[in-house]
């Protein structure tokens, strides 16, 4: 069952075309990995899915992206509502310079989903889900920037899921982390998979192979191939994909 259906998507930075004719179905309760060399457009594509590219002046989109059958680029789309349904985790952990509690409570506060005195259970549940609760339950009022980078990234994931999104976009979420923290985040992704539709951009092919169910391969702004991860990494149907995966191209 597809959650997101991308149809003939083109994306432009000014006159420069960054994505050409991308069509892709993204399934719910699965992890979809997007791989490809730097600058191939995979991060740009990811930021199209929650319209974060809207914040960059001079960008333009054609084609459509359907979320549960509704085009998110339709003129009457509520972008705020869209972003509360499609959460995002960034490349570098970016907790706010506020307390751990306030970080997780940020979403429920701005979206007014909970009253101020009903926030504590939401914060606890979100931190439990990312496995951070036991580490931080006694220091919830401490500045989030004092956590380790790995903890910060899990905190950012907790912050994203506190508003109960349907989709979580992850833009190279482990590239700033050490191997152990990376494994922790990957383990977390497998757990979250039961409840969310996850799309992850990664330059690390082993990571794509380890965590994802489906993989899409981007090359120079085009989606070259997409398939079940196992098939993709063992019997890619496209020569370019094979060269990239085996390290002969890119």
């Amino acid at each position, binding site marked *: 069952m597809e959650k997101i259906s991308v149809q003939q998507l083109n994306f432009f930075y000014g006159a420069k075309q960054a994505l050409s004719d991308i069509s892709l179905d993204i399934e719910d309760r699965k992890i979809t990995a997007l791989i490809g060399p730097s600058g191939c457009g995979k991060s740009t594509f990811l930021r199209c899915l929650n319209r974060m590219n809207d*914040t960059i002046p001079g960008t333009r989109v054609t084609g459509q992206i359907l979320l549960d059958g509704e085009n998110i680029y339709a003129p009457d789309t509520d972008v705020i509502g869209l*972003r509360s349904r499609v959460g995002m985790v960034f490349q570098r952990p970016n907790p*706010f*310079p506020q307390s751990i509690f306030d970080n997780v409570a940020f979403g429920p506060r701005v979206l007014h989903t909970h009253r101020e005195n009903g926030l504590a259970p939401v914060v606890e549940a979100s931190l439990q889900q990312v496995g951070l609760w036991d580490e931080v339950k006694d220091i919830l009022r401490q500045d989030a920037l004092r956590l380790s980078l790995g903890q910060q990234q899990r905190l950012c994931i907790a912050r994203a899921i506190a508003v109960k999104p349907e989709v979580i976009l992850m833009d190279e979420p482990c590239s700033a982390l050490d191997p152990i923290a990376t494994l922790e985040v990957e383990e977390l992704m497998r757990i979250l998979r039961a409840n969310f539709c996850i799309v992850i951009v990664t330059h690390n092919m082993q990571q794509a192979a380890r965590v994802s169910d489906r993989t899409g391969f981007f090359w120079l702004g085009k989606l070259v191939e997409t398939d079940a991860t196992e098939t993709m990494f063992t019997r890619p149907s496209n020569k370019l994909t094979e060269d990239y995966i085996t390290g002969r191209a890119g």
Partner: protein
Amino acid sequence: MSQRTHWSEFFISAVIRVIGFSTIGFVGLIFFFLLQQGAPVLGEVPLNNFFGAQWYPTYNLYGILPLLLGSMMVTLAAIVLALPLGVATAVFVREIAPGWAREILKPLIEVLAGIPSVVLGFFGMTLLAPFVRETLHVPTGLTAFTGALLLAYMALPTIVSVAEDALDAVPKSYRDAALAMGATQWQTIWRVVVPAARSGILTAIMLGMGRAIGETMAVLMVTGNAARMPTTLNSLFLPARTMTATIAAEMGEVAQGSTHYHVLFAIGILLFVLTFFINLAAAPAIFEKRRRGGLR
């Protein structure tokens, strides 16, 4: 050859060092001069007179309290007026205005800081004072409030400029994180960007305050210069006199070496100490901003 390079290096660095230290030295000398000229007050004026409520130098009454409170009242009122305006302007310039408008506004605001205060005082006397008199129905337009309005205007460029820099130093990743959560632009600014820049904004307030308390010409021209104790809230809309205006107005007519002369210097010392502490209060915020800036 290498010997010559060595000597010119040595010479240049020595010159630079002397210039650098002499700047510090001059500040020290100024303070020393102030102390030397103001210190005799201790022997000439009893403390209960000096910290009294009456400033009548011709009757040997040197109570600086009305001047001190006058300065504080005018400065605080100015900051209360300038703070919301300044922060709002900084937020507009940095967060809301489109790029081309920011390019125009930023230098324009910095130009405002360069308007000579006597020109602003002139403007205050001829336009602002009558306006205050008529709209507030007070006997004279030359009031503490008029001075505060003018000082607020003068502190604005400093506050806007420093606060804008502070907002600019907030990493884009914070804004991205907030927007990606479904926060509106306003929520992003109010709940994430402004709190993240609060130390810089505090610095802006302190620097604005330092500018306001030290300002002389404009307040001299518009506050009415009556050395009365501000005892009620109403005093804001009556004439007042600040420490700076007192020094400027009386220094030219006082006999050198007289008690009155020494008292004016003592007021100068007090001003120096006040501004020193205001800047000191801003210092940790400045250092913290640098540290945060480095982490980006």
